C-alpha cells in the first residue's frame, strides 16, 4: 500500500530533525506519591529514586490536591484506601479540574477488588493500577513510561511553533512505535487488544475506547476490549455492518471524525446514561482496521465535551491503524491454529489437583518449542481414600491428536484400575493388556504410577519404561527411587507386574517428570538426571517453587525440544504440638495457612465442633489477610503464625514486623469485626517493631451460640 502524504511529510521532517540538537529544555514536572501511610511513601521513594525524577509526596488526598495547584506533575501514584478523602474521590476531583485532568494516575491497592469496579476506577482518571506487593522494576517501568509521555505533552505546550512541529513528528513516530513495538508481538489476542486499547486511550486522552473485531463465528464486529464511558453501540457489544452510522462506516472501511449529530438514533441512545443526563462523549474518532483489503475491525475513541479530537488526531491514528491491524491479524492467524491445539490439550490435562490434608501437590506442563502440536505428556492425581492418593505421569510417544486421545484413554483406564484397588504394578499390567487389545503394538507409551499412603508414610510405585521419580528428604538430599522397570506399554503384555514400596517421611518431596526434562540432544541422559538432581536439591521448600526452580535450572534457555511435564508431591507433617509457620506476606499464603490450620485443628483439637473450626479458619485468615494488605510490598516481608492449645482455649497468634495500623476503611474494618465476633478474645499489641495479634476461642464453647453474634 503506497505511503499516504502525511507519512511522506513525516519522514522528511524526521530526516531534518535528526540533525538537530536532541537536548530538551530541563523538565521540572515531578512524580506525585500519595499515601497516608508515611512508611509507604518512604519505600515508594526508595523504589523510584533510581529514575532520577523529582519526587513529591502527600499524606492525604487534600494535601495532594494542594500540591497539584502549585506544582507541575507528570504522573500520580495514588493509594486507594486512605482515611478522609479516599483514592477514588481524590482521583475524581483531579480529573474534574482542567489543569490536572490529563495527568495519568496509577492506583496502588492491596487487591484489585478494592477498586470496586475497575471501569469506575478508569473512569475516575486512572490509567493503571498496581497491587501490593509491588515488583519494584515493574513499578519503575510504569512510572517512567508516563513520565516520558508527560514530558512530551509538556514540551509541546511550551515550545515555539517550529519546536511544536518537531515534537509532533517525534510523537507521531513514538505513537507508531507504541502500536508496533516488539512487546506486543508476544501477547495473545486478548492481551494484545487490551494493550492496544489502553495505549490508544492514554495517548489520545480519550474518555472512551473500544476495539471491535470481526469474528468468524457470527456476523458483525464484536467488542474485544474497551475502557471508559459507554460507546454509541446499540446492545453494547456488536457493530453490525451496514447498520447505523458506525455500521455504514465499517462497511465502507472509512476512518472519520464524527460529532454526535452524525450518529443514528439508536446509537445515540446507547450512550445515554440512566439518569437522563448528558452523554459523556461529544466527539468520536472512528478508525477502520484494514489488512490486505479486508476489514478486520473498528477502533472507536470518544472524547467528552471539554476536549475534542482534531484532524491531526485522525491522521495520526489512521497511520497507527495500519500497524495495529498487522499486529492483530498476525496474532489471530497464529492464535487460531494454536488455540485448537491448546484447547484440546488443556481439556486433557487436569487443571485442578486433589486437595489432601496431608499432601501438597503442584504440576507444570510445558509444550515443546516446536510448531504448535498437541503433545503426549500427561499427569494425573486422584484421591483413593482418606489416606491414599494415586499420582501418575506418562508419555505417549509422538504428537498430534492421535497421541493425545490415546493418552486420554490410558489415563481414564488407569484411574479406573486404581480406584478398583489394584496395586501399581498390577494396574500397569492391566493397562498394558488394554493397550494391546485395543490400540495394537504400534502405540508405545511410558507410565509411572505411584500410590502414596500418608497415614503409613509409604509410597508404592511401578514404572513402565518411564524415568523413576526423584525423592528429596527433609535435609535436602536427593536420590532417584530406582525400581525395576516394566517395559513400556504396547511392547509385550506378557511381562509380569512388579512394584516396590519405599518409606516417605514428613517434609519429603517426590518429583515425577517426563524425559523432556532431562534429555538433550548429544548429551547422555545421566548428565540430564544429574542436573535435575542438583536443581531439586537447591530448590526452595514449597511445591510450587520447586516446579519453577527445577524448570528454570534444567532449561538451557531454549524452549524444550520435547514436551515437559512435572508433578511435585510433598508429605506434610502430622503435627502435634503447636503449629509454627513463617510465610511471605503475599496473598497465596492465605489459603496455605488456612489449610495448615485446618489439618492442625483436626489432629490437635478433635473435640471442637465443625462450626467452631470454621469460625477459627475465618478469624485466622482475616488476621493474616490484614498482614498481607498492610505490610508494604517489599518482596521479602514475612510474618509468623502460631496455633497452640492451652488448657481451655485454642490460641492463634499472628506476628508481623511492619506497622499495622488500625484499619479505618471498610475492608480492614470488616475483617477485624469478624475476628472479634468469632473469637472470645482478641488482643492487638502494636509496637514499633511490629504487631502481634492474639486470638483465643474457648474449647467448650458451642459455635452456634446466638449470643456470640452480639459480642
Amino acid at each position, binding site marked *: 500500500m503506497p505511503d499516504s502524504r502525511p507519512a511522506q511529510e513525516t519522514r522528511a521532517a524526521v530526516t531534518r530533525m535528526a540533525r538537530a540538537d536532541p537536548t530538551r529544555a530541563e523538565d521540572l514536572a515531578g512524580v506525585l506519591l500519595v499515601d497516608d501511610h508515611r512508611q509507604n511513601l518512604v519505600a515508594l521513594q526508595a523504589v523510584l529514586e533510581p529514575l532520577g525524577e523529582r519526587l513529591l509526596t502527600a499524606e492525604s488526598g487534600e494535601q495532594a490536591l494542594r500540591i497539584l495547584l502549585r506544582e507541575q506533575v507528570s504522573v500520580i501514584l495514588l493509594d486507594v484506601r486512605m482515611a478522609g478523602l479516599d483514592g477514588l474521590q481524590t482521583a475524581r476531583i483531579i480529573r474534574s479540574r482542567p489543569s490536572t485532568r490529563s495527568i495519568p494516575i496509577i492506583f496502588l491497592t*492491596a*487487591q484489585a477488588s478494592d477498586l470496586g469496579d475497575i471501569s469506575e476506577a478508569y473512569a475516575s482518571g486512572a490509567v493503571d493500577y498496581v497491587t501490593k506487593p509491588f515488583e519494584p522494576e515493574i513499578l519503575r517501568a510504569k512510572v517512567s513510561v508516563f513520565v516520558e509521555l508527560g514530558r512530551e505533552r509538556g514540551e509541546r505546550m511550551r515550545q515555539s511553533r517550529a519546536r511544536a512541529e518537531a515534537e509532533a513528528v517525534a510523537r507521531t513516530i513514538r505513537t507508531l512505535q507504541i502500536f508496533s513495538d516488539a512487546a506486543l508481538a508476544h501477547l495473545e489476542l*486478548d492481551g494484545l487488544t487490551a494493550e492496544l486499547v489502553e495505549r490508544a486511550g492514554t495517548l489520545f486522552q480519550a474518555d472512551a475506547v473500544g476495539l471491535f473485531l470481526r469474528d468468524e463465528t457470527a456476523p458483525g464486529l464484536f467488542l474485544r476490549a474497551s475502557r471508559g464511558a459507554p460507546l454509541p453501540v446499540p446492545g453494547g457489544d456488536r457493530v453490525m455492518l451496514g447498520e447505523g452510522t458506525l455500521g455504514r462506516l465499517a462497511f465502507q472501511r472509512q476512518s472519520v471524525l464524527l460529532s454526535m449529530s452524525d450518529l443514528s438514533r439508536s446509537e445515540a441512545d446507547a450512550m445515554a446514561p440512566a439518569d437522563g443526563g448528558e452523554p459523556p462523549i461529544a466527539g468520536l474518532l472512528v478508525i477502520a482496521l484494514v489488512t490486505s483489503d479486508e476489514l478486520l475491525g473498528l477502533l472507536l475513541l470518544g472524547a467528552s465535551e471539554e476536549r475534542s479530537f482534531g484532524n491531526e488526531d485522525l491522521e495520526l491514528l489512521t497511520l497507527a491503524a495500519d500497524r495495529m491491524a498487522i499486529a492483530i491479524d498476525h496474532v489471530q492467524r497464529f492464535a487460531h491454529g494454536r488455540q485448537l491445539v491448546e484447547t484440546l490439550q488443556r481439556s486433557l490435562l487436569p487443571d485442578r*489437583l486433589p486437595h489432601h490434608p496431608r499432601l501438597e501437590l503442584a504440576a507444570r506442563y*510445558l509444550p515443546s518449542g516446536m510448531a504448535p502440536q498437541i503433545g503426549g505428556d500427561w499427569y494425573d492425581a486422584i484421591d483413593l481414600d482418606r489416606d491414599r492418593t494415586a499420582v501418575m505421569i506418562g508419555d505417549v510417544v509422538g504428537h498430534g491428536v492421535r497421541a493425545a486421545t490415546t493418552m486420554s484413554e490410558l489415563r481414564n483406564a488407569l484411574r479406573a484400575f486404581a480406584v478398583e484397588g489394584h496395586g501399581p504394578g498390577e494396574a500397569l499390567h492391566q493397562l498394558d493388556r488394554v493397550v494391546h487389545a485395543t490400540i495394537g503394538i504400534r502405540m508405545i507409551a511410558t507410565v509411572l504410577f505411584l500410590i502414596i499412603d500418608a497415614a503409613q508414610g509409604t509410597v508404592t510405585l511401578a514404572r513402565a519404561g518411564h524415568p523413576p521419580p526423584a525423592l528429596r528428604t527433609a535435609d535436602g538430599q536427593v536420590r532417584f527411587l530406582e525400581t525395576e522397570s516394566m517395559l513400556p506399554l504396547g511392547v509385550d503384555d506378557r511381562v509380569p507386574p512388579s512394584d516396590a514400596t519405599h518409606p516417605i517421611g514428613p517434609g519429603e518431596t517426590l518429583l515425577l517428570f517426563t524425559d523432556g526434562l532431562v534429555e538433550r540432544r548429544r548429551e547422555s541422559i545421566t548428565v540430564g538426571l544429574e542436573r535435575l538432581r542438583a536443581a531439586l536439591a537447591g530448590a526452595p521448600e514449597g511445591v510450587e517453587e520447586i516446579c*519453577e526452580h527445577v524448570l528454570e535450572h534444567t532449561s538451557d534457555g531454549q524452549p524444550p525440544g520435547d514436551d515437559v511435564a512435572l508433578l511435585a508431591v510433598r508429605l506434610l507433617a502430622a503435627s502435634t504440638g503447636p503449629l509454627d509457620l513463617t510465610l511471605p506476606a503475599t496473598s497465596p499464603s492465605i489459603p496455605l495457612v488456612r489449610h495448615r490450620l485446618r489439618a492442625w485443628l483436626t489432629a490437635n483439637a478433635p473435640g471442637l465442633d465443625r462450626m467452631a473450626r470454621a469460625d477459627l479458619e475465618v478469624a485466622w485468615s482475616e488476621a493474616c489477610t490484614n498482614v498481607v494488605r498492610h505490610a508494604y510490598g517489599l518482596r521479602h516481608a514475612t510474618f509468623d503464625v502460631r496455633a497452640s492449645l492451652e488448657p481451655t482455649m485454642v490460641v492463634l497468634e499472628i506476628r508481623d514486623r511492619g506497622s499495622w495500623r488500625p484499619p479505618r476503611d471498610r475492608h480492614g474494618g*470488616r*475483617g477485624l469485626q469478624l475476628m472479634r465476633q468469632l473469637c472470645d478474645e482478641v488482643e492487638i499489641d502494636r509496637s514499633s517493631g511490629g504487631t502481634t495479634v492474639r486470638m483465643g476461642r474457648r474449647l467448650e464453647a458451642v459455635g452456634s451460640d446466638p449470643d456470640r453474634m452480639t459480642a
Partner: protein
Amino acid sequence: MTDPQLSPDTGAWRATQDLVSVSIREQGGVTVATISGEVDISNVDKVARALNALPNVAPGLVVDLSQADYLDSSAISLLHGLALRLRQRSQLLVIASPPGSPPRRVLELAAVHINSRILDEPELAVQALCENRDRSTPA
C-alpha cells in the same frame, strides 16, 4: 492480560490446588453464578473477573453460594461492591446460601442481608428475581 494458568517466569502451564471455580448459566432470563470452593484474598480477583461478565439486560444476578466451602471479608467486599454496581444499573443481586453453612454464617455476621437478599437455595433466588422483574413496569 496474562493467563493466570501460565507461570510468569517459565511460561509453563500450572496446575495448582486451585480452590475456586465459577460457573455461569442462564435460568429463566436470570443469570446464576455458582461459586464452588473457597474464596479469599488470593483468588477473589478471579471471582470478580468472572462476575463482571454480566450482560446489561438481565434483571439481576443470583450468586449461588451453595457450593462454596469458605468465605471471608474479601468475598464480602466483593459482594458489597457488586450489589452497588448492579443497583446503579437498576439490577438486583440475590444471594443463595444454605442456612447453617459456614459462608452463611459469615454473610450474616457481616450484615450482608441489610443490602442484599439472602435466600436458602438457588431455585428460590431465581424465583425471587423473576418475580421482581415481572412486577416492575416495562421500560
